């Protein structure tokens, strides 16, 4: 029993010694804690660290509190842990402060960079604006010079146009004047022509009147009558035998006068018309009057009158000039009428 007790005590003592050997040295832990306290005291008064790493400093403060209280616990592992953590948190505070400093410096540099970039860009923009403005001024000046040149050119052109216009107006006035003169000359010429024409017409009329007078004189002893168709010369039934169409030898004196007239007035034409009384058949009278008119035509042609100026037509008993119920009336109806027409004479008359 005693042996067991001794063995147990020996084992307990061995374990205790082993545990003491494995555990951190208490003296070293205390020294480490004191060293950390010293560092911490200097860090705690460091405004830079307090400003730049407040969270880490707060965490360190809490741990340092535990480091102080852990002295009373006599738990070496835990004290070692607190010491370790406090030391690393101090490093962490310093690292945070360094990081914040670098970040602030970066931010400040970024601000400077942005500011400088903006200022440079602004100055470049102003420079470009000045350059552009100068360029625009130069272009404007050039345009103004060009405009002035164009205006001067336009003024010269206008002056030239005005001169040309004046010359043209003068020419037109000259032409108008010449035209007026020409018109007056033409008018005078026309008046002269008209006067001459009137004079010629008067002469023609006089000649026509004289011709008519001559014609009327030459045909005075013939039975004549002026009508719309012309001058109608009526030759009685003395020209032909009864029922015959051969001219009597002594009855052609009146036809000679007519032939003489036609030879003298070349423009005159003669239309020879034969008529009978109502004795006998109308057809026979038509043929007889036609043959008698043709006999007169042939006689005139024989005296030198152109045939194309003559025409002959028999009307028979169709156009009586007196009743056929008396011998005098029938004698008047048996006739040959020569209708003389001369357009020139008629117009002039």
């Amino acid at each position, binding site marked *: 029993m005693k042996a067991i007790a001794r063995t147990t005590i020996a084992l307990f003592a061995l374990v205790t010694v082993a545990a003491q050997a494995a555990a951190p040295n208490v003296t070293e832990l205390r020294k480490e804690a004191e060293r950390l306290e010293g560092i911490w005291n200097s860090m705690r008064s460091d405004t830079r660290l307090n400003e730049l790493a407040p969270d880490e400093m707060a965490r360190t403060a809490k741990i340092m509190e535990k480091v102080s209280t852990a002295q009373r616990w006599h738990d070496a*592992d835990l004290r070692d*842990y607190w010491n*370790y*953590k406090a030391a*690393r*948190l101090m*490093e*962490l505070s310093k*690292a*945070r402060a*360094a*990081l914040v400093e*670098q*970040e602030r*410096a*970066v931010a400040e*540099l*970024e601000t*400077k*960079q942005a500011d*400088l*970039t903006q*200022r*440079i860009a602004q*100055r470049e923009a102003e420079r470009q604006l000045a350059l552009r403005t100068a360029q625009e001024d130069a272009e404007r000046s050039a345009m103004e010079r060009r405009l002035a040149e164009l205006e001067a050119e336009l003024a010269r052109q206008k002056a030239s146009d005005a001169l040309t216009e004046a010359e043209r107006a003068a020419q037109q006035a000259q032409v108008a004047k010449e035209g007026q003169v020409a018109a007056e000359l033409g008018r005078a010429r026309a008046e002269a022509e008209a006067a001459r024409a009137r004079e010629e017409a008067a002469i023609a009329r006089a000649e026509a009147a004289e011709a008519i007078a001559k014609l009327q004189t030459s045909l005075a002893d013939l039975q004549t009558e002026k009508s719309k168709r012309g001058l109608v010369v009526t030759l009685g039934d003395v020209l032909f035998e009864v029922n015959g169409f051969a001219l009597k030898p002594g009855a052609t004196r009146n036809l000679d006068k007519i032939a003489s007239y036609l030879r003298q007035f070349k423009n005159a034409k003669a239309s020879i018309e034969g008529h009978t009384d109502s004795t006998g058949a109308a057809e026979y009278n038509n043929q007889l009057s036609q043959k008698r008119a043709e006999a007169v035509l042939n006689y005139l042609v024989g005296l030198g009158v152109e045939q194309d100026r003559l025409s002959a037509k028999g009307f028979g008993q169709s156009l009586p000039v007196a009743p056929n119920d008396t011998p005098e009336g029938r004698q008047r109806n048996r006739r040959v009428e020569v209708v003389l027409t001369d357009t020139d004479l008629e117009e002039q008359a």
Partner: protein
Amino acid sequence: MGHGAVRFRAGILFSILLVFSVVAGANDDDDQVKAMIDRAQALVDAAELRGGTRIAANEMEAARDWIEKADESRKRRSYGRARIQADKAMVEAELADLISKTEMARAQRTQLEGAVTKLRQQWEGDQ
């Protein structure tokens, strides 16, 4: 039913509840330690992407070491030790994270200082 039977049943029920609470508490500890390990690992990974292995080599190594130890302690269900180790890993990871960020900011600052100097020269030169 006598008082003895009632006490017996109450004792049984208390024991069951105690077992449940112990099991549930263990699960909570495990979850908490895993979450701490995951956070520390995430910070270490982020620091590594920023070149932390070169810049904060000691912190990265320490963080990985504490993460490994915490995970082993967690697997042994030694949650008190695991929590302390995970917390140390977390502090080291935070340090690595801050140091790598600081280095990046310093590099950016250097670059910006060069750019600003050029801009200032441009600004002053064009005056």
